[in-house]
């Protein structure tokens, strides 16, 4: 599967990008909510998010809700395009159009 983007082509990172792609561009999800939606451990999620961030696929924004720090995550433009390309490649590999 040389054509499939290796950053996304791993179970955890595919699940993360797929979940973030359900939101409109510009919308972001707080780390604890994303963890809940994905049912992943905080450490596991954090590790894979770091790989996605290193590739420039996600935007990470640290903010505060009252006095509590909150990290918001969203797909970057590059990430959204990479996810769409990944889906397209996957479907062409499988010979499906939908």
């Amino acid at each position: 599967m040389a054509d499939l983007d290796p950053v996304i082509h791993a179970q955890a990172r595919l699940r993360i990008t797929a979940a973030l792609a359900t939101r409109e561009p510009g919308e972001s999800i707080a780390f604890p909510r994303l963890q809940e939606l994905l049912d992943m451990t905080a450490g596991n999620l954090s590790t894979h998010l770091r790989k996605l961030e290193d590739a420039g696929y996600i935007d990470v924004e640290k903010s505060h809700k009252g006095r509590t720090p909150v990290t918001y995550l969203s797909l970057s433009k590059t990430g959204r395009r990479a996810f769409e390309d990944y889906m397209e490649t996957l479907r062409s590999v499988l010979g499906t159009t939908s």
Partner: protein
Amino acid sequence: MTNHDTGGAAPADHDIDHDDEPLAPEQMLALLNDQQRSVQGQMGGFVPIIMLTWGVAWLVGFGCLWLIDGLQPEFGIPLGLAIAVFCVLIAVAIGVSTFLGVRSSRGIRASSGSSFTGAVYGMTWWVGCLAIAGFGGALAVNGMDRELANIFYPTAYVLFSGVMFIVAGAIWRAVPSVVLGGWTVLIAVIAPYFGYPTHYLVLAIGGGIGFLGLGIASIIHLRSLRAKTSGTASATASGAQSRG
């Protein structure tokens, strides 16, 4: 990115090793679809409760207004009691919708554009409701009697609600909301032709059917999402095992 809000949780090494591997392409596509359905199901899980709450509020609330005179002289609910029940039910439905809506969107930060759209849409409900009250007052000043006011107010509010459901469907690309809105506008226009007090019965049954129908449809939709999700999840798991 050096530190998320992990609360100091240590990475689960076993999970990372396993999750870092790709599956076969068809299993990856299934995993992708599965995850998106799961998120949609989790984000939309509150919709049936809101729809069923509004269905009961309309059915019982407008039903009570109909029962003031609808079955006279055999049976009748005092005017004050009927209005009180109606107001309490609508207030409860608004409260339930607000609570579940806020709960569902926790941890989600909208873009500035969609925040503006949502705020304007929310404010439009208040503007419209107050405007109808003002308009009704003006009609009363110009000679609208109590019988006609009994027709005007419920029709105007139901009509406005229907239009707002259509607008919500257009903004958030939700076809069921457009259908509900169209149906609500239709019953708002038809009900007055039945005259007082039967128009309340038409609104009770018509509105109740609309909301309860949509509530049941959303339960079925969410169940099918869950069924597809668990189906692909088990297929993916068995695929992973066969690979291992």
